[in-house]
């Protein structure tokens, strides 16, 4: 078991290092120069522009050779310093991200956990029930095939513009400032609902279908037929089948987390929900190297952490992994 964990950890560290490096390089391949872009927003006399360009290239550490910028970047990361945002100058990237992260986690974590649990339950329930299989599961296929953005737009249009039940943009009302009161908390929830639901629905469809197929597969297995021939109650059989079927679903969750994070990016953009995803899109549009790096760093850490949690969960759920790794089989 320790070997299993050590192996996984090595892979994660390596992945982290490579992913962060790639995310450091890619923005620098973009044509253009963030300092120039920033300065061009202030109509200045040429003399002033020249002085300021030099000053800010130094301030952002962009006046040294690229390899040195890269080394400085890692040095700074280990000191917990992600630099200063260009787009949101002079705000430190770490503070920009700290303000956005609660919003992203608030829609992402409940959507992942709830859709996985509900999807699995529903899929298992629907399998081998003809009327459900014929009516609701096609809907599941439809949901899981829907791009996050498209569903988001449909929901915003239907419930936001059409029915007017929910707001279509923002994290909270324009008439409020953040504070602790029921009114504000309700307002937050009211704005949170549609982005959450659009992530939830797409994932729910996927898990439900996966589970339904797994259950059907498991119900054909030898052990089920053996149990059936022994006259075991149907409820018991389905419980065994469910426990076996859930294992690939856990693996699926680990594989899906990256895609889900990408889904959160577009969902936040559609609802202009003030999380990391929206921030990332704005950072890219404004060529803000430091903010892009920072956002990706958190997305990478988040995805790897989630994977680690899934790996550990797998250890707990599937005894074979534990035994297999200590060489008893």
């Amino acid at each position, binding site marked *: 078991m320790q070997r299993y964990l050590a192996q996984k950890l090595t892979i994660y560290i390596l992945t982290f290092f490579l992913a962060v490096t790639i995310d450091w390089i890619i923005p620098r391949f973009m044509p253009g120069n963030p300092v120039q872009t920033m300065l061009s927003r202030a*109509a200045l006399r*040429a003399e002033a522009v020249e002085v*300021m360009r030099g000053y800010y290239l130094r301030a952002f550490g962009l006046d040294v050779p690229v390899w040195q910028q890269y080394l400085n970047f890692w040095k700074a990361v280990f000191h917990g310093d992600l630099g200063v945002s260009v787009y949101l100058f002079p705000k430190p990237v770490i503070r920009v991200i700290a303000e956005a992260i609660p919003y992203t986690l608030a829609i992402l974590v409940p959507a992942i956990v709830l859709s996985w649990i509900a999807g699995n339950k529903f899929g298992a329930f629907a399998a081998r029930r003809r009327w459900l299989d014929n009516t609701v599961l096609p809907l599941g296929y439809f949901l899981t095939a829907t791009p996050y953005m498209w569903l988001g737009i449909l929901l915003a249009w239907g419930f936001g513009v059409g029915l007017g039940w929910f707001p279509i943009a923002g994290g909270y009302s*324009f008439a409020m400032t953040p504070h*602790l009161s029921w009114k504000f908390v309700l307002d937050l929830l009211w704005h949170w609902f549609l982005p959450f639901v659009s992530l939830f629905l797409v994932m729910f469809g996927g898990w439900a279908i996966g589970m339904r197929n797994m259950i059907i597969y498991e119900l054909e297995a030898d052990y089920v037929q053996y149990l059936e021939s022994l006259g075991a109650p149907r409820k018991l059989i389905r419980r065994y089948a469910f426990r076996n079927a859930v294992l690939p679903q856990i693996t699926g969750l680990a594989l899906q987390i990256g895609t889900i994070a990408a889904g959160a990016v577009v969902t936040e953009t559609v609802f202009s929900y003030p999380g990391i995803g929206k921030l990332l899109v704005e950072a890219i549009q404004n*060529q803000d190297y430091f903010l892009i790096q920072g956002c990706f760093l958190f997305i990478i850490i988040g995805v790897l952490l989630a994977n680690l949690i899934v790996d550990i969960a797998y250890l707990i759920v599937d005894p074979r992994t534990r035994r297999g790794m200590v060489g008893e089989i």
Partner: protein
Amino acid sequence: MRGKWWVVLGLLVLGVGVALGQEFPRQETLYISGAAWGPPTDWNPFITWSKANTSGTVGLIYEPLFFYDPLKDTLIPWLAEYGQWKTDQLFEVKLREGLTWQDGKPLTAADVVFTFELGKKYSTIYYSPMWDYLASVVNVGDYYVEFSFKRKPLYQEFVNNLYNIAIVPKHIWETRTEEEITSGANANPIGSGSYKYFAHGPDRNVYIRNEEWWGIKLLGLKPAPKYIVEIRFATNNLALGALLKGEIDLSNNFLPGIATLAKLGYVKTYLPEPPYMLSANTAVLFLNTTKKPLNDPAFRKALAYAINVDAIIERAFAGLVAKASPTALLPHLAKYVDDELVAQLGFTYDPAKAKAILAVAGYKDIDGDGLVEAPDGSKIYLEVTCPFGWTDWMEAIRVISESAQAAGINVVHRYPDYGAWNTALVTGTFDMTLNNWASLSNTPWTVYNLLFNHPIRDVMGSGNFGRYNNPEVFALVDELAATPPWDAEGVKAVCAKIQEILLTDLPMIPLWYNGLWAQYVEFTWTNFPGAYGGRPHWLPCTWAGYWQMGGFHTLCELKPAQ
């Protein structure tokens, strides 16, 4: 027992929360949008490029010595009671007596001196180039400030700075380091203005009226809204929806469908008929004069005749903008336009004439594809660009390429990303591109400084992107900058010479005036500005730099709807 404590604690927290919590009463709040392109990050009046995101920093929180009214082309004394040129190298400002900062301390001449001297101390302050010609700024007592000059100053720039440089309190800023001053966030700003910072979020700024503002007594002015909430919408559609529902009162976003809505009476605009909007800046087609065949004045002239500006106005702007004067000057500076010259040399859309000019200059269609080749027989291929996502400009350059093609000139449109477009612009690798970076101002020098920025450098960051190299016109722009403001005839004479070169050589082509986008609904507030029906005459604009050009006065004219 323990359970009870939790309940008590919970109620306490809730009670405090409710007490601190804030919801703005609709009747006392003005909702606006259209200034910000990003989240608010600083309230530092010396960081100029981010001021759009906290546009009230200068004008509402901090104030300059003067305000400026473009509609009347006059300076409005503000912190200053008056300003006068004692000699042509000595300018005296008399401050009003009884000015106060928002923390209650008096605002005196020492604060003004301190603010201007920051530019001498730190080269990264945007107005430090002023000190090339400024000898000293000293206060005489508490109310008089004397600006003396080493030589004849750049009067036009100096006057422009008088209503743009925000005066900051010495007692707060003098202990700050250079870094804090030039790039600090300056959270919780203390200014002298009519509004105070109240709150902000990623998509909003909130200002609250300063009930102790000096102007209530000294100017007899009081802005109507107690709160101003400025909102940044992710897309213009959201802004339009919110405006029509009355969730915002004043929108300064570009909303293409407004002409129709204004005609039907759903929204109000400054002008009752097309183009509905006042003009804010001139959209100019810059031509890269270092590239063939754009280095040929005859070819450039043909291009100017080939572009169908009316089609741009119709297709890209749905009639919301007006055709620009070929001299590039905005309507409020029309007195500096040499009308005779324009009648003689001005260009209009005339494809036949474009073809004739091309033929005379030796551009002929040799291979029979309907497009002309250069006199040396080489094929012509030119790209016209604008940043991707700027939908109105994207449509505009589509019209440009189409009408150029129709006249036989092979121009195609391309939409690079903003970063790539910007790099090509300042390093001079583009062929033809649109730009409008000269803001509305008190002087024709602003736009001519954009068109003929000099000297030519590797990176042309603030104008003359096409690298038009003509020492004669550079000298004229310098002369214009140094022409005193009281010499209107002198300004006009220099402008005429510049216009003659502009119109003969056409190193760039002025096309249309981008609008001062402003549309309002009057569910909550009425008496917005307008050129009709007894409405007040001010620029109804909340963009950065416009609060002191009419935006603030708009607030003073508003009346509650009930």
